């Protein structure tokens, strides 16, 4: 029951998180920026609008937004509730990563079906980066599940490993949620967008489904990364707020990386995840 309640909270608050990140970034850039509640209004507006579908496309294009939302919700449901000790379980870790692959697979197919060079270019980049983030994602999630007992333990035993895993997850999240330095949510230039480019052909209520899915996935990543760190449930909320401050700051400081430098970022994420899981196995990393 508690789990369902927290899942509902996560889904409901996901657009708010996006709004906070956006308005915070605007403040840091010296702009007044939109209200944190803007994503709700955007979703409402998009929901009431009609959907446009590129001509001569298959049913995949129509089914993809719903499927992507379904995947995001399942992904969020697999995030363990913050009141339960433990970050992830081995069962979920792999399933979560491969599940994200499902929505990506269908969205990329929809992008290729649109026959546009823009969507296909973004699709190619999305798949390339996804194939590189798969390893750090699974390793970091599994790191949370390594323990002497088969069930998940609290991250308190090995805080250093937890910090490393959280770092790896945050780096992967930058790619998954189209953030600087991998991608830029603020830009709408077809040749540079990755995630936005992938869904370029969508509009109206279909875009609303996709956006909500993206927000939910982002919020789930925040919770996952926070769960990797030691502490009780209330501390987890503090971590989430800390991430929410950190990420706009990083987006303010850093510029977007060149496309072919991004793999280095993923390489560092992989190293972090490997180090984290290595520390966990060795039972090291206590203060």
């Amino acid at each position, binding site marked *: 029951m508690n789990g369902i309640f927290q899942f509902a909270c996560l889904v409901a608050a996901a657009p708010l998180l996006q709004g906070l990140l956006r308005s915070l970034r605007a403040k840091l850039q010296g702009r007044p920026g939109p209200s944190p509640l803007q994503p709700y209004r955007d979703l409402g507006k998009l929901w009431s609008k009609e959907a446009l*579908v590129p001509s001569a496309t298959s049913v995949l294009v129509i089914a993809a937004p719903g499927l992507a939302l379904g995947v995001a919700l399942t992904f969020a449901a697999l995030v363990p509730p913050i009141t339960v000790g433990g970050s992830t379980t081995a069962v979920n870790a792999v399933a979560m990563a491969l599940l994200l692959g499902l929505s990506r697979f269908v969205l990329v197919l929809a992008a290729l079906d649109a026959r546009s060079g823009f969507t296909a270019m973004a699709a190619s980049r999305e798949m390339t980066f996804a194939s590189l983030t798969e390893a750090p994602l699974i390793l970091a999630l599994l790191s949370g599940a390594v323990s002497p007992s088969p069930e998940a333990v609290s991250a308190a035993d090995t805080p250093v490993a937890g910090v490393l895993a959280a770092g790896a997850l945050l780096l992967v999240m930058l790619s998954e949620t189209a953030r600087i330095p991998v991608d830029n949510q603020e830009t709408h230039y077809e040749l540079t967008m990755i995630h936005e480019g992938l869904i370029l052909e969508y509009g109206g209520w279909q875009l609303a489904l996709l956006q909500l899915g993206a927000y939910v996935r982002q919020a789930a990543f925040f919770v996952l990364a926070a769960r990797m760190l030691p502490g009780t449930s209330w501390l987890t909320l503090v971590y989430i707020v800390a991430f929410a401050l950190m990420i706009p700051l990083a987006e303010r400081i850093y510029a977007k990386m060149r496309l072919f430098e991004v793999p280095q970022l993923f390489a560092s994420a992989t190293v972090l995840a490997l180090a984290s899981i290595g520390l966990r196995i060795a039972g090291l990393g206590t203060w």
Partner: protein
Amino acid sequence: MIPFAKIVEPRRLLGCAALLSTALIALAAIVLHGTPGVAILPLIAPQQLRLDFASTTLALPFLGLIALVVPAVAVWGLRRGAPDDGLRLALFVLAMTGVLLAQSVAAFFLAWETMSLVSAFLVGTHHERRAVRRALLSYILVSQLGALCIVAGLALLAAHAGSFRFIDIAHAAAGLPLDLRSIIIALLLLGFGSKAGLVPLHFWLPLAHPVAPANASALLSGVMLNIAVYGLLLAAFGLAAPFPLAWGVWVMLVGMLTSITGALYAAIDSDFKQLLAYSSIENLGIIATVLGVAIVTAALHDRTLTELALVALLVHTVSHGVFKSLLFLAAGNVAESAHTTDIEHLGGLRRVMPLTAPLLLVGCAAAAALPPLSGFASEWLVFTTFFRTLPIAPPALAALLVVAIGNLAATSGLAALAFVKLFGIAFLGEPRTVREIALERPDVSLLGLGWLAFFCIAFGLAPSVLFRRMIDVGAALSGSTAFDPGALPTLPVLLAALPALGAVGAIVMARRRGVRTVPTWTCGSLVTPRSQYTATAFSKPLRRIFAFVLFPEHQQIRDTGASHWFPLRIRYTFSTRYVFDEVARNVAAVTQRLARRSRIVQAGLLRVYLVYAVVAVLIMLVVAR
């Protein structure tokens, strides 16, 4: 109803019947499991050449795979492929069944060689093409060298055991001295590993598998590779058991290298069948990695984990066999309709092949390990095996296992890229250069694809159907009965429920609210078939990122004509280097050069040969003194 006999030629019916009867033989062998089996004692050298056949526990999953895949190939052949394929394929399947049932050295070698030779004939079907002859040559060379290694290994085992029956050899295996064991293991790994397409002995596979007809490719990739896996299992958990820990680590390393290499090359390939062949290498690499873990855990005396690893291995073997056969048969449909398998020329095939498309999509999604399909269930199990082995592994091995987990993750990511490209470029969008393709007619051959697609879904949604059968095998090999698949039996359904609901909901919504069809946004320019992304372009970022192993090179030739700014034609060529193939080619070249050099001893003079004979006798006398 379709007037059946009128459409289907009698030759095709005969071939189909032959293939179906081989599937029945495999089924019968499963049913007869546990019976004493048959022995044929020839008149000369009755012990050495005795042919024993019996249905063992280890062979059951592989016989089951034959019984699953072969009917699909048989039905496919009713309408597609060359009319005479059926009988040759039936002989091939029979030989493979023979390998699985063989219980003595001579029987095994006989069946193995029959399998190799018949498959060589299948590979060489279109021998009028030069590329096919080259592929055939390297296939025959590797498979014969592999067979030599196998027969040498088996002969050493038989000499040690003093018997040519597998059951005696397996009993005597525990007493093998370490150095002899190592030699035997090396020989058997070389022999079976080359047949399984493990790096660096894989280079023949992407040449040989694509040039065979589609139904033959389906059996080569979907079944024969798994016969090599059977050989590896037979060696590791029967004839030469137990393998020392170090060999398990080596098998793991080779498997990891194989899987990532296969996945990377599959991701950059743009030929339908060659991509599938590289994907086979990838999956065999995964299987080899799990085999390594099984050997390691057996050496560490953790029977529960050995059983888990074996079950994961067998489940992945069956799952790969099923989806790879489906994909190769679908490739056959594409080749028959479009007369090419180069996906750069294809596009929009879903419109002309409305029945093949969804079936192929199921296969692609299974190959990309997406929930809720069979590939997901099996890869999940493999991940779980690695993960659960971590706590018992000594530190160095644990580090290797962690790398194996990361490697498998990267592999599945690359496989997803390869298959999204395959389906997206060839089946979606607009036709690129091959334009006139006749609309596909619903015919009986699609039932074969449907049959395989059904199992991709069934094994994905209800993986316990597959487990229950593999657990007995895993238990028999490992001596444990504590298998626990964890959360998997219900996991895929849970994962797929919401996405499926969402997809259906989005379609229903689109029906009710309506969607407006608009032109694709291209900043105002026209969408033409040639302006679509190509497979080469799709994988270009990957080629650049992995330039340190792929060595991509491209060349642009501009036919400028009158004006530099308005070229009449631009030709773009690109190439990547296949490092392992180059190594193999260099080894072959050096061997050939040495052979040419050594020809000098063949002077053709009788006196010289007499001197050789005298020297040889002298050496023998000295050695045998």
